[in-house]
């Protein structure tokens, strides 16, 4: 049992801590998952570091998607709470999100098992920030993007609740950059986030129109990060899927 001075010191430290302390994840060296959700494939996540806007290869884009929830009685906090609870439901069917068993809290990992233009893409994201009105997911090495996306809700100047998805990210490596720029990848991604907001709005009985603002924050490609291709989750997922029949035929080694 802590002594009275120790308890006082702990209490003082708690009071002195910034009020955002509980909202942020602690630094993680390498990602880990305590318990893989049922039905999810955990690949290209465990052992990876996070990758932010500084670490990727491609041009850096900030994209802000918004939908006004006109007539919605819910508060911004209630919208975000629903978003945290129903995150997988708002995704297109080809983009399966598996929230952590412990819930969407800072430091937890969301697994993603997606199909991208017919190809499997197995990866995940780290919950780096979560408060009552926003949560932010950061990508790991090998993910198509290097950066983070923030889901939030707020009241605009007319007091209407607005749900927003804002991403700031680069393509992680040259293969992804080619896909985003020349193979319709960017448009496909924009459709995904638009779908998410339309689905969210429908849950609140709103037929919302999604607006998109996009800014190329940095048009330069970071050539030194081309090496990220070695961890390309899309390529590794394809190889994993192709080798799956072989793995199933190979008997487990005897102990």
């Amino acid at each position, binding site marked *: 049992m802590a002594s009275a001075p120790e308890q006082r010191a702990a209490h003082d430290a708690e009071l002195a*801590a*910034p*009020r*955002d*302390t509980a*909202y*942020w*994840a*602690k*630094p*993680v060296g390498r990602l880990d998952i305590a318990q893989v959700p049922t039905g999810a494939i955990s690949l290209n996540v465990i052992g990876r*570091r*996070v*990758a*932010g*806007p*500084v*670490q990727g290869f491609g041009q*850096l884009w*900030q994209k802000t998607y918004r939908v006004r929830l006109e007539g919605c009685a819910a508060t911004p906090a209630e919208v975000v709470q629903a978003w945290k609870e129903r995150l997988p439901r708002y995704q297109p069917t080809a983009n399966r999100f598996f929230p952590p068993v412990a819930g969407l809290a800072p430091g937890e990992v969301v697994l993603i098992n997606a199909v991208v233009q017919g190809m499997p893409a197995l990866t995940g994201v780290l919950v*780096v*920030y979560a*408060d009552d009105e*926003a949560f*932010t997911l*950061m990508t790991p090495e090998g993910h198509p993007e290097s950066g*983070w996306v*923030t889901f*939030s809700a707020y009241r605009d100047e007319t007091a209407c609740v607005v749900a927003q998805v*804002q991403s*700031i990210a680069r393509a992680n490596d040259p293969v992804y950059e080619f896909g985003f720029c020349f193979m319709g990848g960017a448009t496909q991604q924009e459709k995904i986030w638009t779908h998410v907001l339309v689905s969210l709005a429908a849950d609140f009985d709103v037929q919302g129109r999604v607006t998109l603002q996009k800014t190329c*924050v*940095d048009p330069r490609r970071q050539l030194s990060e081309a090496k990220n291709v070695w961890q390309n989750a899309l390529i590794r997922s394809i190889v994993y899927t192709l080798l799956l029949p072989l793995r199933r035929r190979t008997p487990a080694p005897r102990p």
Partner: protein
Amino acid sequence: MDVRRVSDRASVIDIRGEITSACEDALMDADVRASTGQTRVILLNFDGLEYMNSGGIGLLVTVLIRANRNNQRLMAFGLSEHYRQIFELTRLDEAIRMCSGEAEATAAAHA
């Protein structure tokens, strides 16, 4: 946000209170004021920072990109352990040098 020139080549932006996406105009304005033609280093003073959310860290990325575009280095000092950890978590510490105090930051700016 206050802007101070510490030398011909270095400016300090004193950040106080909160950094959230609502601070975008104020931070970008401070960045413009800190960047004269001769500025080579911008020092961000986080001693007065009380609150930062993920929108705020996104603004710092924008400041960093602008600094890179202007051939400027970005450094930070006055970060508490909590905010140092956020820089480490988001790997911004790989692009923004963190110094223990203004003296170290100023010395590093002129090295």
